[in-house]
C-alpha cells in the first residue's frame, strides 16, 4: 500500500469547491491522460486514462466507487483496476484556510523512510491515473496567506498494486506521481477561481 498527498489553497469559499467535486463528471476535465469515463450512478463510475509507466504509456481502466460524500469537507472513494491488478482509495479534503499550518505540499520522497516507499509508489500510481500532464503551478494563490474566504484543498490517494511485478511498477511510476497530483488539485482550483473571477 502506498500513499501520496498534495495540498493547495484557493481564494474560494469551501462550498464552491464542494459544489464542484461532488459530481465525478467534473473531475474528468482535470485529469490529464483522461480518455473517457462512464458514470453508472452517483457513486460508481468506470474510468479510462492513459498514463506513463517508465518509458511507455498504457491505457488503464478502473472502477471508482465513492464511499462517502461528506460535504463540504470530504469526498472519499475506492478504486479497483479492471485491466491491471491494483486497488486503492483516495479523497478530496476541503478545509477553511484561516491559519497557516505546516507544509503546503507533502513530497512523498522526502517523508519518513518507512512511509517513503509507500508514498513513492503512490506518486507513481497517481501519475498513471492522472497521465502525463506535468506540473500546473498557480503563481497567484499557491503561497497565499490564510484569511476569510480561503480554502485548503487536499488530494490524497493510496494504491496497492498486485502481481509479481508490483515493486517494479512502483519504482517506475515514482518520479511522476507528485507532479501529477499537484496538477489535478491546482487545475481544479485555477478553474474555479477563473470562473469566480469571470462572475465577480
Amino acid at each position, binding site marked *: 500500500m502506498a500513499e501520496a498527498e498534495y495540498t493547495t489553497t484557493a481564494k474560494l469559499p469551501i462550498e464552491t469547491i464542494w459544489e464542484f467535486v461532488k459530481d465525478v463528471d467534473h473531475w474528468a476535465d482535470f485529469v490529464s491522460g483522461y480518455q473517457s469515463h462512464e458514470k453508472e450512478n452517483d457513486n460508481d463510475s468506470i474510468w479510462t486514462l492513459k498514463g506513463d509507466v517508465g518509458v511507455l*504509456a498504457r491505457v488503464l481502466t478502473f472502477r471508482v466507487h465513492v464511499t462517502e460524500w461528506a460535504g463540504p469537507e470530504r469526498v472519499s472513494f475506492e478504486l479497483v483496476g479492471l485491466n491491471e*491488478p491494483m486497488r486503492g482509495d483516495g479523497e478530496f479534503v476541503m478545509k477553511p484556510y484561516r491559519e497557516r499550518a505546516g507544509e503546503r505540499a507533502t513530497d512523498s520522497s522526502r517523508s519518513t523512510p518507512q512511509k517513503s516507499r509507500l508514498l513513492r509508489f503512490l506518486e507513481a500510481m497517481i501519475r498513471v491515473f492522472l497521465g502525463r500532464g506535468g506540473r500546473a503551478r498557480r503563481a497567484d494563490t499557491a503561497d497565499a496567506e490564510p484569511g476569510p474566504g480561503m480554502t485548503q484543498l487536499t488530494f490524497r490517494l493510496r494504491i496497492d498494486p498486485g*502481481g509479481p*511485478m508490483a515493486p517494479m511498477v512502483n519504482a517506475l511510476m*515514482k518520479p511522476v506521481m507528485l507532479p501529477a497530483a499537484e496538477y489535478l488539485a491546482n487545475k481544479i482550483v485555477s478553474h474555479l477561481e477563473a470562473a469566480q473571477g469571470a462572475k465577480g
Partner: protein
Amino acid sequence: MAGKPTSWDLETDVVAVGSGLGAISAAIVARDLGRDVVVLEKAPKLGGVCGYGGGEVFVPNNHKMRELGIEDSDEAGRKYFEFLSAGFADPELMDTLLSNCKDAIEYMEQKAGVRWLAVEGLPDYYFPKVEGAHSGGRYLSVELFDGSTLGAMQDKTWPMTPHIPPGVLHREMYAWGGLARVTEWDYELIGKRISEDQRSFGPGMMAYFIKAAMIDREIPAYLETPVRELVTEDGSVIGVRAEREGRDFFVRARRGVVLAIGGYDHNKELALQYEAMLDWNSACPPYLDGDNIVMGGEIGAAIAAVPPTNLAMFYGYNIPGEEAEGKPLFRASWECGVPHAIRVNRKGERFCDEATYKDYQARLRSWDGQTQQMPNIPPTLIFDQNYRDRYPLGSYMPGQELPKELVETADTPRALAEKLGIDADGLERTLARFNPPAKNGEDPDFGRGSFAWSVRLVGDMSYKNPCVGPLDKPPYYGVRLVPVSVGINSHGLKTDVNGQVVHQRGHAIPGFYAVGNSAALRDLGGGYQSGSSNMRAITWGYIAGRQLAGKG
C-alpha cells in the same frame, strides 16, 4: 543538397549526425585525436536505438572472454561470420570489420571507461550446428551504469527500454530462469535499481558512451536538431543544413561529416519498397526516417543492399493503447518459442522452429510461385491454458485478463481458428500431429529446442525440452502477429574500407562517411547475429573517427 551558405551558424572539424553508437564512437575517437566535434540529433533524447534496445555487442575472441579463461580464436570467429554472410558479404569490408572490432571495444574500455562484461553461457545463434560458432562468451554487455553520473545528460537519455525489464544483468536474468520465468524475477531488486537509476542493457551501455562523449570530453550535442541536407562544394561534403527551433542551422565541418542516423524503420514507404514486405512496423524510437537514403542519394551516393531474407526481422504485436515516444509500441513476440505455444500460417499449419527466429524469419518470406502468395504471412500465435497458467503474454501476467482487442479465445482449436480466420481443419490436424511427440519434448518436424541459443533465451528449463510442450488444455488463445523490425535494414549507403561513402560513379565522396545502419550491411552480408549490429556501429565509428581526424 544545399550549396555553401553566406555564413555558418557553427564551425567545427567533424559533424557527427545522430547520437547512437556509431555517431558517438566516431565523435569520441575524433575528439581524442584532437579534432573539434559537434553532435546533431533529431530526437529529444540522446542514444539512438542502442539507448532503447538490448545492448549486446558480439565480438569473437574478445579480451573479456580471455580474462575469464574462455577459449576462442579469430579464425573461428571469421569462419562463423563467413557462414552468416551466405556469400553476400564484401570480403574486404568483412575483413576490415573483424580486424578492427577488438581494437575498437578495447579502446572504448581503456579510453572511454566502458565497463564491458562477457555474457557467459549465451551461445552464438547457430551453436552447436555450425563450424566456428561458440558456446558462450562472445557477447559483451556492460556493468550497471549509475545514471546520476550523467549530470545534465541524465534526463536527456532513456533510463530504460520499453522492451526489457530494466536494471537487470544477463547473468541475473538467466539465474532467475530467463524470459520464460519472468514472473519469478527479483522485482524488489529491480525496483530498487530503477529508483537509483542503475541502468542496464542498451540504455546502460549507451550511457557509458554518452558520458564519455558529452560529460568527460564536453562534446556539444544539439538535440531536436535534424539534419536536412548535406552542404557540398566541388563534390565534397563541407557541412550540413540542419533545422533548429524552426530555422536553418548551417554547420561547417572542416574535415567532414559522419552520418550515423540509422535506416528507414519509420519510413513505411521506403521500408515496403526495399524490404519486400507487405506490412511494416518498428520497435525502434520513431526517428529513423530514411534520411540516410534521401540525403546521400541527393548528392549521388550509391545505395547498396544485402538480401533482406534473414537479417533481424521479428513478428510481434502492439498491446492496444500501449505507446512509446507518442507512437504505438510494437513488441517482438518471444511467446511462440515457449512450451505450449506454436505459430501457424493461414492454413493452420506450423512452418518453422518457432523458438529460433533465424528459422522462422526466413521461412516467413517463402513464396509460393504457383499461387503467387507468401503462404506463411500473416502468422498467428496459438497457445493454450497450460501456457497461460505459467507464462506472460507481453506484460500480461498469468491470471490477468487478456485484452480482447489483441487476443481471441475459444474452447476448441476449431472455434479459435474460425474466430481468427485461419483454416480450422488445418489447425486441428496440426495439433493432432504436434501434441503426441510434444508430450515427450520432441518436435520431429522442425527440431524445436535444438538451437542452444533459443533454449537459453526463451526456454523453460523445468521442461525436458525447454521449448516444447503440448497444447491440450482449453481454452485456446490466438494472437495475429505483424512484422516488427529492429532497425537493421537491407539497404543503406555504400561505403568503403574507411567508412567513406561511395559515389554512384565509384569514387569515395570527400568529407562524407556513413556508419552503423546508415551504411549498407555489405560487411555482414546476408545474415545476422545478435550483437553484430552494435559491434559494427562501434567499429565503423572508430574507423571513421580516425579517418576524419586524419589518423586512419
